[in-house]
C-alpha cells in the first residue's frame, strides 16, 4: 500500500463527488433556512423558493416546463414511479418493453409487476450494446404500455438512438421513458426533440448530492404515486422535501447546462489518452461498448486471462478506484447482465474493467493508471492458468 498517495477516483459512473459550488448552495438549507416548504411563514417560504428555483434549473436542463419536474430521492425512485405508476394508473395495456441492458432499477420493478398481470419483454442489443430496433418493432403492439430504454448505459456507456426508439413507441400508442441517469448533465438531453414522455435523473451522478433526483413526466401523462400521505410534488410524491438536496440538484443542473460542451470535450480527451496508453501497454484487451456512440467519460474493456476483482483490488492498493462487471463485484454468481447481453463470453465478462472519468480528473490521474495497470495485469497473468506466454 502506498500510504499518503493521492486517491485517483475513476468511478464517476457509480457516483461523483459534490461540486464545491453545489455544496455552497446547499449549505444554508440545513440550519439557517430550515423551514418546511409547506409552511406559510417566511422560513418555510424561503425553503419553498429554493425548491422552485431548483425546479426551474432542472427544467431548463431538459427543455421542459417547470411543472413537469417532480423531485424524488434519485434515479431508482424515478424509475420505480415511472414503471409502477404508469402501469397501475390504467387497466388496458399489459406489456412493458425494456432493453436487456437496463439498470436493475428498471428491470426489477417490471419483474415485480408480473404478479399483477403485466408482462416484461426484453429487447436484445448488438455487440456494441445498441438496442435492436427490429426486435423493438416486433415487440410493439397495442398491448404495449411503456417502452423504457436508457439514454446511455452505465457500464459500457453506449448511447441509444432515443429519437428512433421513442418514435416507434409512439407509433403504437406506448409511452416512452428513458433512464437518463448517466447522461443528464453530461450530454444534451432535450425531451421535446427526443420525444421523451418520462425521464429519470439523479443528482449524484453529475456532482450533485446523493438522495436527490428528479422525474420528468410530460404534462397530461397519468401515473400513480408510490408514496401516499401528502400533497407534495403535486400529489405525486408525499413527504417533506429534501430541501438542501433539491437545492444542490438544481445547482448541479445549472453548472452542467453552462459547462457541458467544454467539459465533455476535456473528459473525452482524457478518456482517449487513457485508452491509447492502455492499448499501447497491454496485449489481448477488448473495448466493451460502442466505438463512438459512447459517453465521453466511460472506458470499459476486458483483459483476457485475468479476473476483474483481482485487478480492482490491486488498483485500490495503488489508490486507484475503478469498477468491474465480474461476478465477484456484482454480489451474485453471474457477471454483468449488460456484458452478457452484448454477447461477451463469461470469462471476458469476468475480466472486465471500467474506468469512468469526471469533472475532477486530471492528466496526471490518467498517466498514473497507464503507469500502474500494465504491471498489475502482468502479475495476475503470471499466476493465471489460462495465460500461456
Amino acid at each position, binding site marked *: 500500500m502506498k500510504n499518503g498517495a493521492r486517491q485517483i477516483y475513476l468511478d464517476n459512473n457509480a457516483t461523483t463527488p459534490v461540486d464545491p459550488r453545489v455544496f455552497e448552495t446547499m449549505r444554508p438549507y440545513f440550519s439557517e433556512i430550515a423551514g418546511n416548504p409547506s409552511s406559510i411563514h417566511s422560513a418555510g417560504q424561503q425553503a419553498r423558493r429554493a425548491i422552485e428555483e431548483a425546479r426551474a434549473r432542472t427544467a431548463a436542463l431538459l427543455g421542459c416546463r417547470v411543472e413537469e419536474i417532480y423531485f424524488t430521492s434519485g434515479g431508482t425512485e424515478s424509475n420505480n414511479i415511472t414503471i409502477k405508476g404508469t402501469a397501475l394508473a390504467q387497466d388496458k395495456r399489459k406489456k412493458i418493453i425494456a432493453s436487456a441492458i437496463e439498470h436493475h432499477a428498471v428491470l426489477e420493478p417490471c419483474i415485480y409487476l408480473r404478479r399483477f398481470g403485466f408482462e416484461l419483454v426484453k429487447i436484445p442489443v448488438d455487440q456494441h450494446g445498441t438496442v435492436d430496433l427490429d426486435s423493438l418493432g416486433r415487440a410493439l403492439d397495442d398491448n404495449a404500455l411503456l417502452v423504457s430504454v436508457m439514454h446511455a448505459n452505465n457500464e459500457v456507456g453506449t448511447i441509444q438512438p432515443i429519437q428512433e426508439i421513442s418514435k416507434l413507441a409512439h407509433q403504437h400508442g406506448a409511452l416512452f421513458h428513458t433512464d437518463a441517469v448517466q447522461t443528464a448533465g453530461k450530454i444534451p438531453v432535450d425531451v421535446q426533440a427526443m420525444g421523451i414522455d418520462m425521464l429519470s435523473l439523479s443528482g449524484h451522478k453529475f456532482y450533485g448530492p446523493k438522495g436527490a433526483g428528479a422525474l420528468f413526466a410530460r404534462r397530461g401523462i397519468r401515473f400513480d404515486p408510490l408514496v401516499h400521505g401528502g400533497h407534495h410534488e403535486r400529489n405525486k410524491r408525499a413527504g417533506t422535501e429534501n430541501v438542501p438536496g433539491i437545492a444542490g440538484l438544481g445547482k448541479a443542473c445549472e453548472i452542467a447546462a453552462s459547462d457541458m460542451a467544454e467539459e465533455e470535450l476535456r473528459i473525452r480527451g482524457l478518456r482517449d489518452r487513457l485508452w491509447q496508453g492502455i492499448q499501447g501497454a497491454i496485449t489481448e484487451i477488448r473495448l466493451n461498448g460502442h466505438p463512438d456512440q459512447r459517453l465521453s467519460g466511460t472506458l470499459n474493456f476486458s483483459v483476457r486471462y485475468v479476473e476483474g476483482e483481482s485487478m480492482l*483490488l490491486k488498483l485500490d492498493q495503488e489508490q486507484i478506484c475503478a469498477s468491474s462487471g465480474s461476478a*465477484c463485484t456484482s454480489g451474485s454468481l453471474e457477471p454483468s447482465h449488460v456484458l452478457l447481453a452484448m454477447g461477451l463470453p463469461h*470469462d471476458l465478462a469476468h475480466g472486465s474493467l471500467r474506468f469512468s472519468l469526471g469533472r475532477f480528473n486530471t492528466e496526471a490521474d490518467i498517466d498514473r493508471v497507464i503507469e500502474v495497470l500494465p504491471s498489475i495485469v502482468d502479475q495476475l497473468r503470471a499466476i493465471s492458468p489460462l495465460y500461456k506466454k
Partner: protein
Amino acid sequence: MQYSEKVMDHFMNPRNVGEIEKADGVGTCGNPVCGDLMTFYIKVEPRNHDPHLARIAEIRFKTFGCGAAIAVASMASEMAQGKTLSEVIAMSRDDVACQLDGLPPAKMHCSNMGVQAIQEAIKDYLTKTGRHDIASTIKGCPRAVH
C-alpha cells in the same frame, strides 16, 4: 468487499505460485465461466510404499480468479506443504477459511476450493500410481475439470 489482512497478504504476495514440469499429480477446480479456476501441481515423496505416509514434497499453483480465490490457493498450498497425503485428504475448505481469518460469505462457496483442487492432485497421483482403491475414496472437486 471486506477482506481480512491475511487474505490481502496472501492475495498481494501469493506463496508457491507456478507449475511443476514433471508433477506427480495435477488437480484443477472451477472453470472460467464461473470466474474462478485453480490448478495445483504436486511432487510426492513416497514413504514405505504406504501412500498414507507419503508427503507433499513440493506444491505449486496457478489461479484465475478474484482476490479470495488467489488467497485461498496460496494459503491452501502453505497448509499442504510437507504434510502427509492422509493429512491433506482430511483437510477441509473451512480449515483454509479459518486460517485466513474468515472469508466474506459470498466467497465461501465460489472461491474456496483450494483444498479440493489439491485433493484432486493427490487423486491424480494415486490413480497414476495404481492406488485406485484410495483415489476413489477422495471426494475432491465437485465438478472437476480434467
